[in-house]
């Protein structure tokens, strides 16, 4: 690449990393007569794409922290240059870690790091590249299943679209998976029935073995399996 073009790209990279450097950009190209307001548009566009992607990925986080705090979070996160993948939503992948790092310093509500993990998992499960087989030979865990553990009742709170100011406290194992036919993200706080059926799928246990080991009636076990299969949490033959 010729030096002139190299200089052009370097100067644009500096500007786009920090659009406040518009005058520096213009000064590095003497005689450039394009209106500054037009050049500034590119800095605005690039930052807008980061913000708009995050707003779509983290709507409950945004609503929970309020406008001022959200703007500050966006400013800080955008400065990390998070767009490292051609698929735009992937720029939000590191946001939960960022939120966890700054939570104390910015006095974010305590549940925010857990909520950002949940909202990212919601998207990641929806868009997962995991192939869900159309037919299963045996009980099989839905390959998109993601498990989150946190000290809040987030499933109920998210299902209510954050109607209460904060989620109720309490340990929760949240299960998130993509429904095999509806192809949207389902989630639920894990309960004994779900965990039992997941164990059956992972360990290849029969209904009779589980009934004998747990004291449950075989029909109760079958009903649990049918329910989990209907919900798409597991794939049944």
């Amino acid at each position, binding site marked *: 690449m010729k030096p002139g*073009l*190299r200089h052009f790209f370097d100067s*644009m990279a500096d500007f786009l990393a920090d659009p406040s450097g518009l005058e520096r950009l213009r000064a590095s190209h003497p005689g*450039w007569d394009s209106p500054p307001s037009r050049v500034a548009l*590119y800095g605005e566009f*690039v930052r807008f794409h980061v913000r708009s992607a995050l707003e779509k990925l983290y709507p409950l986080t945004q609503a929970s922290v309020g406008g001022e705090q959200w703007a500050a979070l966006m400013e800080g996160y955008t400065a990390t240059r998070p*767009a490292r993948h*051609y698929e735009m939503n992937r*720029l939000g992948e590191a946001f939960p870690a960022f939120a966890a790092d700054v939570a104390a310093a910015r006095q974010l509500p305590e549940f925010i790091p857990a909520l950002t993990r949940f909202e990212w998992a919601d998207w990641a499960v929806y868009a997962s*590249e995991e192939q869900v087989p159309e037919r299963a030979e045996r009980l099989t865990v839905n390959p998109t299943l993601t498990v989150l553990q946190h000290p809040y009742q987030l499933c109920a709170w998210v299902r209510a679209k954050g109607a209460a100011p904060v989620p109720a406290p309490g340990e929760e194992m949240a299960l998130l998976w993509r429904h095999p036919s509806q192809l949207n993200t389902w989630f639920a706080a894990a309960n004994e029935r779900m965990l039992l059926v997941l164990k059956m799928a992972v360990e290849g246990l029969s209904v009779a073995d589980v009934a004998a080991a747990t004291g449950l009636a075989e029909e109760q076990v079958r009903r649990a399996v049918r329910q989990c299969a209907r919900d798409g949490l597991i794939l049944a033959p």
Partner: protein
Amino acid sequence: MSESYAQRHGLRPLGAGIGLRRGFYETLPRTERALDWVEIIPENFLSLGGRSQRALDACVERWPVLPHGVGLNIGGPDPMDEDYVTRLAALVKRVDAPFFSDHLSYSRLGGVYLHDLLPLPFNEEAVEHVVPRVREVMARVGRPFLLENPSYYARMPGGTLAEATFLRHVVEQADCGLLLDVNNIYVNSQNHGYEPRAFVDALPLERVVQIHLAGHDRYPDVIIDTHGAPVCDDVWSLYRYVLERTGPVSTLIEWDQSIPSMEAVLDQADQARAVLQEVAR
């Protein structure tokens, strides 16, 4: 008259198409409306599973599907994204696209995706930089490739060529096709004060294989190419002017923001098809 790029590659006009956008994943594959082909933004299908793949498969069963990328970064300084190009090649083969396209711009700097299409300076240095990259992509994907004329709001420093000359040099030296975005011509002509028909006349029209039509948003001192409105009358008129010189060309109604009902987008595709049929007579 010399053979056109489309003729050399056995590419025929496909008619009028619309884009497969997320809001149309369920409805588009089932539409009973006239539709000749479908365009996809490959970035939405290269690494995302689930609904996007189901919708794509359903469309491939019914229509030709043409990938039109935004992330190739053909003009940028970074090396080609290996994962991107590998997956793009696989996608083009999977949908059996007769050709694929991206923009004559850059979209990545220092490993950071800008998720926007930024203009290059119109000079020979940029031509020399872009041409081998176009050839590399065509060789790796193994299908005809089109470059789109982008919209731009500021001329970049160091430009020495007229915009049309820059476009011509790139596509002729790389020997690729041209995806002519008629709305971009209109937007650029308004923003930079030139005559759009004279610009069209200066282009290598024998390389035009596809056309984009879209809407834009008008602000006091600039028009932004938002793809967020119906195609305006001036752009329809310019479209007709182009077709009178090229003959029928596969035409897309491109709508990416404030997307209305699918029916409204298909209405615009009907309008484009009517113009295509008129010029074919």
